């Protein structure tokens, strides 16, 4: 059978990570010096393996890293595939290889059909150009011809809702307008295969919905879609099948519900429980890792609305810290703060002075958030001074408890973030209820 859209065999992508250099760029001098060293080595020790051998000095400090390894995948034409996995699992690398931005290091891929990839909203937008000019430019960059853009121009403009500002340079646009225009161009591509990276995490909720609707429409037209997202709700709505990537390998390829539950039940990192925050990329620059770890007790990635949960913050103080403030901040996927937990202004029995290693436990009686995907950030302050600040240390999903589930479809991101229980009855004053 050859009705596949994409066939991937044994795909691998290797990166060389250099540890010696501080700036990532190789300078011409480095190369000259290496070559010269190599030549000298060769002259002095002509029989010992010579210059380019991997064991030669200078080479031992770089390390191979396989971002993807042994990936096999066959995607049928017209299928909509969600790709999920933690940051660094290789999702974006896979999309980059499929879009031919970067070359694989091993394996083969066969693709049937024109691929359009949308790895970023507004690639190639130029701030000095007007909306109209950018539509043409962006369209051409994404692979549309001039005629094709002309034909779809009105449709694109209508979808983006920025008619009034078409002749304004996009540098004067609000970020929302910018994103809307950019997505509109991309949404009107007509490839057989559409590759989309986390691009829907932008724009307001209403526009996000519109985009999802558009993508669904595209999917119904029989296009093949590959969609990477951390938004499980969007993925499960849009895709039929899911690929769960873990450390560069496919850990699960099944229907979307199974893939998601496979992903959500996975333990973060490989040590159970704690997420180490040492060397965390999201730590504010210049701050020491006083906060060394975070744990959602029970290691849950999926919490139920209205149910209790608890968290642990691991600390490592090299000096005496007097009256530390621990903050746990909950944000949604757009970065909007839902609520903050505060160790000083809330009920606590943490000692005044802390030193060395330890853990702080925070118990919450009831999860107030509505179903959706949320992030946790941590901060540590002492009197007027910030000691540590790490964003998005943990992500989790909230679901309705099973007994409330029958109504869950009535709630979505436009309802807000907090669930407040209420009773509704008819008052005495009137009504024609009988």
């Amino acid at each position, binding site marked *: 059978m*050859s009705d596949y859209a994409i*066939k991937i*065999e044994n795909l691998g992508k290797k*990166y060389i990570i250099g540890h010696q250099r501080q700036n990532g*760029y*190789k*300078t*011409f*001098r480095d*190369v000259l010096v290496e070559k010269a060293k190599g030549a000298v080595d060769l002259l002095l020790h002509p029989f010992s393996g010579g210059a380019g051998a991997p064991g030669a000095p200078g080479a031992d400090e770089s390390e191979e890293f396989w971002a993807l390894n042994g990936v096999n995948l066959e995607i049928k034409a017209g299928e909509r595939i969600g790709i999920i996995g933690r940051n660094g699992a290789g999702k974006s690398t896979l999309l*980059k*290889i*499929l*879009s*031919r*931005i*970067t*070359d*694989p*290091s*091993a*394996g*083969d*891929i*066969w*693709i*049937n*059909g*024109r*691929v359009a*990839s949308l*790895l*970023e909203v507004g*690639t*190639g937008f*130029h701030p*000095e*150009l007007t909306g109209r*000019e950018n539509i*043409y*430019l962006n369209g*051409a*960059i*994404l*692979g549309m*011809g*001039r005629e094709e853009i002309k034909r779809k121009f009105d449709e694109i403009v209508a979808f983006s809702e920025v008619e009034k500002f078409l002749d304004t340079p996009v540098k004067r646009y609000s970020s929302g307008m910018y994103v809307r225009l950019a997505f509109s161009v991309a949404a009107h591509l007509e490839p*057989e295969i559409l590759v989309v990276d986390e691009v829907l995490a932008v724009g307001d909720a209403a526009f996000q919905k519109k985009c999802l609707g558009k993508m669904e429409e595209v999917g119904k037209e029989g296009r093949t879609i590959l969609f990477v997202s951390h938004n499980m709700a969007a993925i499960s709505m849009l895709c039929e099948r899911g690929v769960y990537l873990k450390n560069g390998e496919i850990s699960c390829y099944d229907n979307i519900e199974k893939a998601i539950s496979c992903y959500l039940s996975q333990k973060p990192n490989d040590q159970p429980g704690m997420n180490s925050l040492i060397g965390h990329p999201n730590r504010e620059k210049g701050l020491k890792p006083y906060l060394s770890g975070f744990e959602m007790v029970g290691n849950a990635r999926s919490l139920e609305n209205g149910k209790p949960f608890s968290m642990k913050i691991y600390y490592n103080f090299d000096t005496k810290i007097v009256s530390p403030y621990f903050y746990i901040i909950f944000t949604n996927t757009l970065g909007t703060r839902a609520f903050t937990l505060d160790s000083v202004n809330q009920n606590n029995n943490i000692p005044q002075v802390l030193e060395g290693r330890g853990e702080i436990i925070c118990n919450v009686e009831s999860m107030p958030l509505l179903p959706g995907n949320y992030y946790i950030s941590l901060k540590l302050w002492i009197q007027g001074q910030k000691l540590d600040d790490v964003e998005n240390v943990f992500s989790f999903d909230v679901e309705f408890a099973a007994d409330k589930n029958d109504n869950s479809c009535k709630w979505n991101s436009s309802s807000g973030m907090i669930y407040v229980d209420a009773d509704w009855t008819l008052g005495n004053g009137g009504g024609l209820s009988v």
Partner: protein
Amino acid sequence: MKGDMGNGEIKNIKYTLHISPGKVEINYFKDLWRYRELFLFLAWRDVLVRYKQTVIGVLWSVLRPLITMIVFTIVFSKLANLNSNGAPYGIMVFAGTLPWQFFSNSLSDSGNSLIANSHLISKVYFPRVIIPASSVIVSFIDFLIAFLIMLAIMVLWYSFIPPASIVLIIPFLALAFFSSLGLGFLLSALTVKYRDFRYIVPFIVQFGLYISPVGFMSSIVPEKWRLLYSLNPIVGVIDGFRWAILGDVSQPLWWPGVAVSAVVSALLFVIGFGYFRNTEKAFADVI
């Protein structure tokens, strides 16, 4: 070649693409054709953006060669007392300045072009040669505008009637174009990997102005060094321009020099394009 077996069974389906490490793409030129409009779009973008928020706009593309020309005429003709064998010195400098400016703008713009567009390279696929090539196209458009306006100035100032032989600048323009492209490919690809070239290119451009016969006739170079001198492809271009615009009045065209320049520019093009094609696939990882 293990991939080709799999390719056989699906050969009849159009658009089938086979990706595998280090594979030389047979589709490359097909892709180049498919993306032909992107050349113009990128060039159009750069032209539009270039003179945004400037007061005199496109006049800059004339003002720069005009001022260079005036300064060179004064320095070389009046102060250094070089002669132009009877041709108006200003016109002779004009015929040297414009092609030089085209070449040097091409080099500096295309050398930096890949880095300036790194956001495109890491996010979308298209044949990468489009980026430096469209920089050369932009410089070429600048050249055309400047050429027409400068020609008008020459006609008014020197009452100079351009001869019919002026159309002969076209092959020399092609020569300049190919050397610019070749060096542009080479320098832009090298800059991606070795940022040193960001400093080397301005140096080449600055230095080149003095070793190329922009402000003087190449005939002042001693006979035995002429051939060596012609290794600089711009020497052939400028000599050709002067010959086409001024005829044999100032200096008859020295064909061996032109031939050497042509060979060098063809070589530059082949080497530049070859190096670019070889390193292109790694751009997104390195940039």
